[in-house]
């Protein structure tokens, strides 16, 4: 029946289908749907930049306007991947530029972005509107200056947690007077100073500005001026927040903040004097997102008092100095809470004021809508996890990190198998899971049995034998990403079902028992996988014996074979 509709009708229908998975499914129905879908596709998501080439991307989707690319493996965040491993965006930009693609939006995660790339983007894509960089590196303020200067219709410049060499803070001044289209500007991660006058003028001429996240260098009185000029803000990131609460500056600030009746998201407080927080109270009642995870200056009573004003919170990111008691306040105040992230205030793991299982139990009891958790804690018990599983069966993401990674249940001295088992059994929609604590093969049996929707699993210092990995590979049909470190999984587990890896995006194994021979076998059997061995040690005689254990292995499916840009430390089998 659908065959009798002209293409334009189908295209119109497909316009309503925005989710990548759905569009992928649509393209598989029949040849004509495949054809129509490809020409009408505007947004493409590529979870591993080495799984496909830019040429093939464009061949299939010539009308692409928005591209999302992810580069380095997740464990690169934790210094487990050499800095020069790869993930360069320049080759993509070059090809897109050469083939005349009208790129409008680029979102990159864990990629190496050079100033040259940014410059090329800014000079080639006339209608470029949105640049979002998350955990990227390789660029400086010069690249930002090019974007500011040349992208005449820029709507979004969103820099999240990037390592930027910002030796010269002039980039903000490079936005021309004619640029009035900004909707979102986030430079919280930049360390350098910015031209405050230029910033004020930019905000003044951006009537559509909804999201503004400042860095540490923006002083209070500038903040006050910016707020006066942009009372329509929805998302605010405060850089520096130090003032004398009794001063006139403080009063002016309070007045400016109160005018911003639309603010629903608040973050930053990179520099903060806790006694100043009361100026924020008037807008707390509207907040749905609060990120204080970079504000170790706010703790104790000041922190809980602030949270008590935030009754509508849906997403809360904080430091563990909030303590179990503080989490109790969250539990009794934030009934709408969906996502909670508790980060360690001492990232080197000493965890003196860390939270424990008590805090988590309190939150689970008070916040039944909780569906996403990242929790760094001192300890965890099976009983607590079982209670949490009962209270919150809706978890989609559950990431628990016990600061001492092999700590058993301190009450019973048992491994945490039963606790995590309860989580996977109860939370039928669980897509992402990170484990820690003392764990045996048993927990993996539970995961294989119950975690039917699981897409991403992170394992560290767990399991007793290959069985653990096998339970997971056999059981989790929807598994896409598996990352393992320091577990006793060897070749038997790795080689049991190599076809499985083609159904996944990637597998990372470091400090496990797999050998070079095992990895070679995978590579031989599966030409559609790139099997990379990363060896960072300075050994001049890299032992080529197949029996040699491999320090780090990263394998991923790909349509384009071996990449050509791997550094010395990476060997592609």
């Amino acid at each position, binding site marked *: 029946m659908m065959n009798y509709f002209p293409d334009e009708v189908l295209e119109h229908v497909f316009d309503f289908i925005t989710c990548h998975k759905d569009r992928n499914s649509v393209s598989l129905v029949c040849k004509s749907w495949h054809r129509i879908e490809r020409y009408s596709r505007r947004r493409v998501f590529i979870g591993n930049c080495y799984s496909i080439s830019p040429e093939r991307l464009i061949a299939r989707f010539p009308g692409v306007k928005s591209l999302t690319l992810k580069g380095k493996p997740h464990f690169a965040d934790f210094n487990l991947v050499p800095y020069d491993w790869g993930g360069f965006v320049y080759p993509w930009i070059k090809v897109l530029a050469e083939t005349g693609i009208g790129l409008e939006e680029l979102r990159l995660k864990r990629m190496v972005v050079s100033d040259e790339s940014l410059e090329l983007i800014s000079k080639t894509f006339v209608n470029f509107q949105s640049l979002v960089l998350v*955990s990227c590196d390789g660029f400086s303020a010069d690249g930002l200056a090019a974007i500011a200067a040349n992208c005449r219709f820029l709507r979004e410049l969103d820099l999240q947690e990037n390592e930027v060499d910002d030796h010269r803070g002039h980039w903000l001044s490079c936005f021309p007077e004619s640029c009035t289209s900004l909707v979102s500007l986030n430079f919280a991660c930049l360390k350098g100073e910015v031209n405050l*006058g230029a910033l004020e003028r930019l905000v003044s001429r951006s009537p559509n500005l909804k999201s503004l996240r400042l860095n540490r260098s923006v*002083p209070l009185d500038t903040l006050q001026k910016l707020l006066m000029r942009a009372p329509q803000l929805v998302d605010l990131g405060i850089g520096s927040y130090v003032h004398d609460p009794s001063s006139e500056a403080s009063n002016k600030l309070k007045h400016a903040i109160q005018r911003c009746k639309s603010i629903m998201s608040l973050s930053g407080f990179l*520099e903060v004097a806790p006694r100043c927080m009361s100026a924020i109270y008037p807008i707390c009642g509207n907040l749905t997102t609060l990120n204080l995870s970079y504000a170790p200056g706010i703790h104790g009573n000041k922190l809980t008092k602030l949270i008590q004003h935030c009754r509508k919170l849906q997403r809360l990111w904080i430091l563990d100095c909030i303590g179990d008691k503080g989490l109790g306040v969250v539990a009794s105040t934030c009934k709408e809470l969906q996502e909670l992230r508790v980060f360690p205030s001492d990232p080197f793991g000493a965890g003196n004021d860390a939270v424990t299982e008590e805090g988590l139990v309190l939150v689970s009891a008070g916040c039944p809508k909780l569906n996403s958790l990242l929790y760094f804690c001192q300890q965890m018990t099976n009983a607590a996890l079982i209670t949490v599983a009962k209270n919150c069966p809706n978890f989609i993401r559950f990431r628990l990190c016990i*600061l001492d990674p092999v700590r058993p249940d301190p009450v019973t001295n048992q491994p945490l198998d039963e606790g995590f088992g309860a989580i996977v059994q109860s939370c039928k929609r669980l897509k992402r899971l990170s484990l820690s604590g*003392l764990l045996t093969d048993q927990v993996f049996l539970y995961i294989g049995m119950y975690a039917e929707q699981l897409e991403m699993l992170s394992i560290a210092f767990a399991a007793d034998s290959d069985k653990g990995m096998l339970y997971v590979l056999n059981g989790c049909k929807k598994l896409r990403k598996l990352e393992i470190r*320091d577990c006793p999984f060897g070749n038997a587990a790795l080689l049991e079902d190599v076809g499985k890896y083609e159904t996944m995006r990637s597998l990372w194994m470091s400090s496990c028992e797999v050998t070079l021979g095992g990895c070679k076998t995978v590579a031989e059997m599966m030409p559609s996988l790139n099997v990379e061995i990363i060896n960072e040690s300075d050994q001049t005689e890299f032992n080529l014996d197949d029996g*040699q254990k491999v320090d780090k292995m990263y394998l991923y499916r790909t349509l384009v074979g071996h990449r050509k840009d791997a550094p010395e430390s990476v060997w592609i089998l």
Partner: protein
Amino acid sequence: MEVGLKMALKGGGGGDHVGGCEKEKMGFEETELRLGLPGGGGEGGEVVRKRGFSETVDLKLNLSSKQDTSGIDPIDEKVTGLNKEKNLLLSAIDPAKPPAKAQVVGWPPVRSFRKNMLAAGSQKSSSDESSGEKVAFVKVSMDGAPYLRKVDLRMYTSYHQLSDALAKMFSSFTIGNCGSQGVKDFMNESKLMDLLNGSDYVPTYEDKDGDWMLVGDVPWEMFVESCKRLRIMKGTEAIGLAPKAVEKCKKRS
């Protein structure tokens, strides 16, 4: 099920106990031995740690050697491994120091960016605390103004902020280039010369040694600790000051 039974059955075969560790308290000697040991690592330190973790710590301290696994019965291998590693560890690791405090690469799994941000923040706050004072009020005088003011230097975290505050305080007295860009400009020598030759104002301070210095030369924290009073001078008067300031700066560097 199967796994659970295994844990109970395997006795403490060849149990190796590093001196001074609290294994009994933890009560899972059996499980400790059963665990797959990459490279046959041993234990170290007071508190018991799963082989993988302590092995990782060992590796970072360049102690243990990688071993081949080639179909050896896991238990035998572990026992051999433990025996082998024990001596190395005893000699090299201070048992009083729990491995948890040693830094394993990539643990806890916190993004480097976040680690660096928090570390930078805590350095700042600890330097504040180490000076022992929560407030640092200094007198501020401006040439031509009828009265002096006082500011608490600890209210601010950068020259920018101080400069803005001073500008506000003395705004009625036409402070000129002591605005938001004023102090920053003073860090640029050529601009400094331009400004000093004009009739604009220059912020200076008296340091611990009793010398009058140009504001902006040293890092902020250093400035807060050494500043005893502030004086906003007329540009023309400060000319005599600048070369001295530059000299002192050069001597320091």
